[in-house]
């Protein structure tokens, strides 16, 4: 699943560690999600979208 986390993170000027702390997951896990090596659950996906203030479909997209 493709995602725009890196772009949204850059817009907010957040590091991976900062975002990981905000959504309460490990930095390594966020890195795996960001690089599409792992897919988050729906609640986690919604948490990610919420911290960016956007909709889930603005963050994630099917390949």
């Amino acid at each position, binding site marked *: 699943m493709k995602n725009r986390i890196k772009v949204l993170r850059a817009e907010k000027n957040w590091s991976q560690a900062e975002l990981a702390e905000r959504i309460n997951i490990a930095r*390594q896990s966020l890195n795996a999600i960001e690089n599409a090596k792992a897919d988050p659950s729906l609640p986690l996906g919604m948490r990610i979208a919420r911290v960016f203030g956007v909709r889930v479909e603005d963050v994630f997209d099917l390949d």
Partner: protein
Amino acid sequence: MQYSRKGFWIFQAAAFGLVALLNVYVFWMGRGGMLPYISGAVLIAFGVLSVCAFFRLDEIQQAEHMRVWAHGSVLGALGAGLLIPFLQAQPDLLDALADMVHHQRPHRPINYFGAGFILLCVAQVAGSGIVYLAMRLRRGT
């Protein structure tokens, strides 16, 4: 359950610390008649602490742990199964394994069962370690 890196390591350290304490106990006190009961209690506590540690991981780490244990357990069970021809060829090896549980021969069936159980557990932990390393290497981290 909330993700907590510190919580995970506390529970994990407690689990492995208990196993280390058991080894220290065996080293200093020898293998008394209470050892099977103490070992059983330590095994249960190890399991409970490990489950507590697991629930301190985030969902991505939990999924990875489950994959590692699922594949590692199968690998370990298959690896332990490969020992069967060796054990048939060298019956002394089977008694040597049972010595781990109870060092006075002749062994009772429960001693062989205990040895097999320990062997399977160790093989599954080793298998999980191999799968974990393989996953890390494939991911390049």
